[in-house]
């Protein structure tokens, strides 16, 4: 056996002193024997019992601190969620115009929206601060203050701009956007079109079109420029604006209308729309108009 093995076996108690002495010699044995005996007498150091108490106290304070912070966090989270949902809920703005009435909506950033009759506009004034998003159904003229992207969602499309004036008509399946100043991006029919000043888009022909015969103040209050809007839509728009009903049995409403849509004078408005199609009109009651072929 090697010395190493002898010593290790001896330490573990597998060899007696005599065996070891024979193996490694008396002198070496005496030397190691002293080391081994002395170290065997060393007592394992005792820890103070106060250390245990100390630890248990610390454990308690950690537990309390943990409980406190978790409760605090819970309340803070509930509070924040509550506050923000209340804010968002009460910040919902919904503007609806009835037939015959228009409304001008001014948002806090200065953007104005002229809502045509029988239309609705909604936005959340808290969320608007971050995303400038509004939702439209019907017809409206927008004048957007330059800034971050401004987006109008409507059933048939999405229009986004940086700052410009433009008009949207979105009724039933019909969607028409006219840009007066600046640039607008229109998303509809799964495509995106960029409209520059004096360009329009509508979703029936699915085409962009240009118009020149309109001045920039066509976005003023008394008239609106319509660009290639189908005649039935224009008639519907007239009935929305002036709260009248039409009988169109005597004519066939085909074709599209390009031109001014007058907001404040029904006689002028009717003439403007109907004469180019060679139609005329007769009043039956205060609010009932029959459209007839022109003589």
């Amino acid at each position, binding site marked *: 056996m090697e010395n190493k093995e002898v010593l290790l076996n001896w330490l573990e108690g597998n060899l007696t002193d005599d065996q070891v002495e024979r193996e490694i010699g008396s002198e070496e044995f005496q030397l*190691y024997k002293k080391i081994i005996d002395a170290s065997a007498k060393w007592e394992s150091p005792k820890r103070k019992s106060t250390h245990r108490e100390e630890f248990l106290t610390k454990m308690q304070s950690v537990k309390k601190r943990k409980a406190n912070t978790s409760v605090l966090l819970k309340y803070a989270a509930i509070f924040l969620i509550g506050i923000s949902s209340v804010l968002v809920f009460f910040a919902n703005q919904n503007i609806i115009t009835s037939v015959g009435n228009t409304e001008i909506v001014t948002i806090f950033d200065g953007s104005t929206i002229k809502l045509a009759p029988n239309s609705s506009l909604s936005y959340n004034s808290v969320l608007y601060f971050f995303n400038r998003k509004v939702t439209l159904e019907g017809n409206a003229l927008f004048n957007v203050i330059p800034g971050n992207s401004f987006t109008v969602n409507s059933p048939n499309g999405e229009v986004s701009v940086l700052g410009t004036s433009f008009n949207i008509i979105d009724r039933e399946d019909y969607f028409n956007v006219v840009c007066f100043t600046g640039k607008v991006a229109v998303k509809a029919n799964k495509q995106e079109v960029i409209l520059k000043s004096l360009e329009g888009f509508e979703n029936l022909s699915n085409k962009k079109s240009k118009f020149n015969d309109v001045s920039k103040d066509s976005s003023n209050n008394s008239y609106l420029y319509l660009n290639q809007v189908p005649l039935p839509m224009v008639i519907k728009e007239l009935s929305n604006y002036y709260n009248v009903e039409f009988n169109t049995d005597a004519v066939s409403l085909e074709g599209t209308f390009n031109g001014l849509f007058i907001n404040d004078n029904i006689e002028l408005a009717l003439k403007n729309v109907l004469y180019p199609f060679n139609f005329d009109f007769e009043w039956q009651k205060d609010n009932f108009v029959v459209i007839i072929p022109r003589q």
Partner: protein
Amino acid sequence: MNLCEEAFYVKIYDRYSEDLYKFLLYKYQDSQNAEDITQNIFLKIWENCKEYHLKNFKSLLFTMGNREALNQIKKQQTRDQYDPLVNFSYKPETPEFIIEEKEFDLKLQSALQKLKPDQRVVFLLHRVEKKKYKQIAEELEISVKTVEKRIHDALLFLRSEIVELKKY
């Protein structure tokens, strides 16, 4: 068997804290530090009880304790390396040899201070805690061969130190 359960965790402390304390004490020879680190490690685990498991708990303790001890040593390098902070009490058996034995014991304990920490831990776990090679190997997650080598090296070193001291 949830570490987050208070009564259970106290039991775990009672069962394992002594081992961690001894390990740190024998390795780094500083009783106050060994106690502080032991309590810190157990508090750290208690604080984040959800992140720990009982599996391999002892080796987790030793790893964390060792890391913390090394960090502290790095911070306070001013401490004299051989300042004896652990003293084993001396119990003489035969009165005739008291003086001689005591002298030898002091020599041996000062030689012990000079041992490499890893060798000292294993040596003292064997000599003082009366653990078998196999037990030590399991506890420190090292092989029995390594334990044997460290104890043998420790023994050779202590022997040579004693012989060296005898010359003077």
